[in-house]
């Protein structure tokens, strides 16, 4: 059993504990009934996704300053996990919205900015896939990673003059009863751990990918010259 298998096993176990708490320990919401149980994972996934994108921002700035390969790999790993978690947030949010608001989607500030966030980092992943791997691709991606992080709060604040339907932060405003708060905090901790494990595994994959020379280099047997721009 490698270190990574143990980490994955721990993360899966923790998520199962969180799931058990959500379904068996947390009290049923008086108004929203059963669908309210989506809340725990929905908000946790959103927070974990933001944490991932914050890592992308930090790693991108570090890459532009130092050109450290490790920072670039970390950015790549965190961006992928962040996009996955944002997808989870959006899908769970839609499932939550249908019974409570009566619609899967509404053009609210929070929803719109989360969707824009998803699009920006999906574009980031696409850029990584389409650009020739190397220094230039890493630089371009770092610029996109930084601009993407700057753009999202702007989208959020610039659409707040539209009437917002999404509830505000319930955790810091002390609106949750203690049992719900406990379940939420446990779920959030478990989700953050899961995200960290996924980033670590992805980082390892990126490291191994970087170490394998590309087929062209293997054929030529030498470092490939950077292609002239066409």
């Amino acid at each position, binding site marked *: 059993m490698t270190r990574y298998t143990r980490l994955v096993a721990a993360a899966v176990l923790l998520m199962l504990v969180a799931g058990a708490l959500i379904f068996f320990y947390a009290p049923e919401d008086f108004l929203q009934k059963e669908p309210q149980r989506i809340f725990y994972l929905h908000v946790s996934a959103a927070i974990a996704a933001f944490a991932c994108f914050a890592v992308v921002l930090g790693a991108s700035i570090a890459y532009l300053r130092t050109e450290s390969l490790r920072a670039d790999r970390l950015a790549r790993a965190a961006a992928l996990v962040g996009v996955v978690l944002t997808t989870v947030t959006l899908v769970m949010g839609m499932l939550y919205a249908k019974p409570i608001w009566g619609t899967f989607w509404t053009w609210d500030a929070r929803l719109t900015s989360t969707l824009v966030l998803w699009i920006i980092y999906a*574009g980031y992943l696409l850029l990584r896939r389409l650009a020739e791997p190397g220094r230039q691709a890493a630089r*371009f991606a770092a610029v996109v990673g930084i601009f993407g992080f700057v753009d999202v709060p702007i989208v959020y604040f610039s659409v707040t003059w539209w009437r917002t339907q999404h509830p505000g932060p319930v955790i810091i405003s002390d609106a949750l009863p203690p049992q719900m708060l406990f379940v939420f905090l446990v779920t959030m901790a478990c989700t953050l751990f899961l995200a960290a494990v996924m980033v670590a595994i992805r980082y390892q994959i990126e490291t191994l990918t970087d170490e394998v020379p590309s087929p062209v280099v293997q054929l030529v047997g030498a470092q490939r010259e950077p292609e002239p*721009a066409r």
Partner: protein
Amino acid sequence: MTRSIAVAYAVARKDLTSEWRTRELVPALGQFVVLALVIANFGFQIDSQNATVIAPGVLWLALVFAGLVAFGRAFAAEREQASLEAMLLTPASAAAIFAGKAIAAALLLIACEAVLLPALALMFGTPFNAELVAAVLIATVGMAALGCLFAAMVARVRSREVLLPLLTLPLWIPFIVAGGQAVQVAMGASGSYNQAVALLIDFDILFVVLTSLAARFVLDD
């Protein structure tokens, strides 16, 4: 500083001279935006009742896609002749070269707006006033900065035609949110024009500063 301005001016003048001599882009863009209006007419069944509601959306859709074409072309000629590398070999700073390219591309887009805005007012019967023109021009500044940055980036990447809209459009959304609001108010909807334009100016400042900082990393090789 004055050196950078001279470089930016020279690069912008070069691009505009080449456009003036070939007249490649602006006539095509002008035709494109008029076509967009024709398509909107068939898509929406424009009449005197719904025109003012639909017109701002049509304006931004046409403008955004014309912008993508204009900024995508900004680095196409440089790429085809590999002249960007030659420019970067000179002691001129990357930010100044980038500023020149962005100014030229913005002026070409403004030339296209000079067709779009009167055509929209004429064919949709919407008001054509200074507020409308000012909002669109102010939004163009920041959009040009962002658009040129990503155009410079994707010029060296495969599938650039696909990637440019994917990277640029989400980052333009703040301009479309505030610009959309400003244009709606200029066309007679209720709301605060000043607030929207103030936001546009904030975004302009933010993104012009950010892109000039990032230009070095995108252009240098």
